[in-house]
């Protein structure tokens, strides 16, 4: 474009015209607008009254909740339990450090012009799990040991989702490559593995991990419950990951494979240097989407007796000291999940638009 183009003139539209076009374009639309508008007004009003205007925010005891609105005291009083579970108070700084590092690694990803944000992200995927491995359970460097049965709340939810994704990524890549392999037996093994895991619900996988895994292992070798759940989640998630990555592998034009062959690259060099970098970049949005669904699915661990954020809330809403706080508890958890998932999905859509660099016809 050599010459500067004139922008199209802005169409000035008055609010009245806008309403006529978008809300009252025909008698049918007008009727719809009025009926739906009435329903929205009558339901949103009481909802906001309950959520904010009549709600109790201040105080320290259940008896302070007197209004007809929500009792947010319940949340603020139990917040520590909802975030850390039974993690001892004096060691909670270790979890805080991990939260901070997580934020440092991933908040820059949302900011376009942040210098070196790629390196922050890379550290988040590689270094952060190592730091967490030493920091959260303790036992090294003079840190007190905290049993995994004491972990809980939001912290446990994040650990499950994060380790599930990080550990399933390499397995998923291998499975996807295996499924596209030219060796029929390798391909067959990978297809069966992927399809079986994808066909069964996560809850049966978790049951299997918690009931059957101890039977599979030789005598004297055993894992804690959290570890067993993580193994189940990782295997299950790697099958989904493999399918996402296979999508990327299939989207690479044949010419790329042939060009690598023509250069005389072997299989691993071809895959590692030419195919995977392009394929992985292409499926980043897909990986982010699987992360979102895994993040939501981690709530299932409460069924096998782990206290994730929903588990901690579920175990306290029946507390007789507080009356009828179930809705407040669920709204709180829903809000936490919604903020995470909505934010990440917006990010993924943004990424999808940016990474769309061709290859599509």
């Amino acid at each position, binding site marked *: 474009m050599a010459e500067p183009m004139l922008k199209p003139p802005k169409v000035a539209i008055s609010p009245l015209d806008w309403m006529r076009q*978008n*809300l009252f*374009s025909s008698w049918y*639309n007008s009727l*719809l*607008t009025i009926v*739906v*508008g009435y329903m*929205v007004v009558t339901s949103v009003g009481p909802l906001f009254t309950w959520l904010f205007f009549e709600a109790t925010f201040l105080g320290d005891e259940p008896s302070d909740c007197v209004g007809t609105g929500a009792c947010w005291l319940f949340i603020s009083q139990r917040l520590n339990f909802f975030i850390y579970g039974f993690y001892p108070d004096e060691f909670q700084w270790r979890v805080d450090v991990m939260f901070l590092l997580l934020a440092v690694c991933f908040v820059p990803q949302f900011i376009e012009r942040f210098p070196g944000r790629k390196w922050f992200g890379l550290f988040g995927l590689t270094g952060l799990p190592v730091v967490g491995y030493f920091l959260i359970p303790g036992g090294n460097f003079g840190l007190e040991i905290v049993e995994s049965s004491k972990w809980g709340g939001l912290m446990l939810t994040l650990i499950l989702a994060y380790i599930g994704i990080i550990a399933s990524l390499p397995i998923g890549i291998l499975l996807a490559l295996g499924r596209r392999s*030219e*060796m*029929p*037996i*390798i391909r067959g*093994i990978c297809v069966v593995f992927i399809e*079986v895991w*994808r*066909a*069964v*619900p*996560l*809850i*049966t996988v978790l*049951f*299997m991990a918690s*009931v*059957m895994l*101890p*039977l*599979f*292992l*030789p*005598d004297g070798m055993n894992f804690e419950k959290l570890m067993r759940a993580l193994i189940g989640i990782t295997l299950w998630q790697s099958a989904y990951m493999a399918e996402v990555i296979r999508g990327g592998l299939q989207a690479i034009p044949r010419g790329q494979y042939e060009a690598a062959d023509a250069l005389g690259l072997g299989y691993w060099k071809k895959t590692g240097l030419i195919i995977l970098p392009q394929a992985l970049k292409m499926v980043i949005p897909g990986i982010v989407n699987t992360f*979102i669904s895994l993040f*939501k*699915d981690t*709530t*299932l661990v*409460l*069924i096998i007796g782990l206290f994730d954020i*929903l588990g901690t809330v*579920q175990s306290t*809403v029946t507390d007789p000291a507080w009356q*009828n706080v*179930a*809705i407040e508890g*669920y709204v709180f*958890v*829903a809000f936490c*999940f*919604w903020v995470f*998932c*909505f934010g990440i*999905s917006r990010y993924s859509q943004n990424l999808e638009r940016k990474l769309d660099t061709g290859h599509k016809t």
Partner: protein
Amino acid sequence: MKKQTVDSRPAGPKPWYDPRIRSLFFQFVAIALVFWGGWTLVDNTLSNMESRGISTGFGFLNETAGFGIIMSLVPYDATMTYGRTFFVGLMNTLLVSAMGIVAATIIGFIIGVARLSSNWLVAKLALVYIEVIRNIPLLLQIFFWYFAVLGSLPSPRQSVEVGGSFFLNNRGLYLPEPITQDGFGLVWGALIVAIVAVVGLRTWAKRRQLATGQIFPTFKVGFAILVILPVLAYLTAGAPLEWDLPALKGFNFGGGITIIPELAALWIALSLYTASFIAEIVRSGILSVSKGQTEAAKALGLPNGLTLRLVVIPQAMRVIIPPLTSQYLNLAKNSSLATAIGYPDLVAVFMGTTLNQTGQAVEVVAITMAVYLTISLTISLFMNIYNRAVAIKER
């Protein structure tokens, strides 16, 4: 592999550089690894089960279960076998999956179309619904409906009543149950005749349209046949249908059909959750039909309804079907969350109570997984057949 050209080099590469030999070698190693791993697992499991005194085999399926199940579609009581509990659980899973698929499809299509509405308010409301529902874990939604909404319904004595035949309370929703009397077979017969007649009518109308170009109002006439024939049969047979009304007996209701709150909560949550995904699928499917198609149909003089039915929907379906299949599969798998609120589905009954009572984890888990594998493969098989039928026929 490649044709050997005539040259002075020695024939072929060394054996360990030959891709064919290499691939054979790797596959051999893979098979050996799988067998070794499988053998180790089986060996460990057998020795572990022996040391813990767990019996093996499927003999437990014939033993008496001895526990009650709050809802079953087939006759069941505590004196029946574990095999029967499996069947009860399976039927309950299939029931909630089927109900969920129907409801989620209907809600999803409505929301998906509303999302594209020219009415700003409706479109935004659909957007809010989608973005809120699909970003909240399903288990949380099930808990919300079960504990927070259905749990706060009135007790049986104060139940909400509609016309003396529908009752709603915290024990469930009570509906009148139709009981067929003698002679109801005539109505079924009429229904079958009507279906055959409609299929015949459709074939005839299509042939006539191809030959003469005249359009026969198949839908209206077919619908009329489907309704009128069974109703006529019903009246001639002397209305052979009685209603068993639910009534308060002591502290609870008896008679009629009961929809237990567990089923209701699971059904509502599954349908609403899956519908939010289906809505997005429907939207992208409709958007994928290019505007030129609609304009071409208009140029041919097709009215709006026919444009939608003959041009837009068939093309949108091609885009919609594959992701819709995976949503149906997800719904069937997610129905296993029933175990969290105590709806007696396959996982709750068989993998829960039966497993705990018998301790035969390996057999029970294997059977359960096999069932889900079968359900998944069956749904994808049917959807693949349908997909092939609507796919573009390239010649």
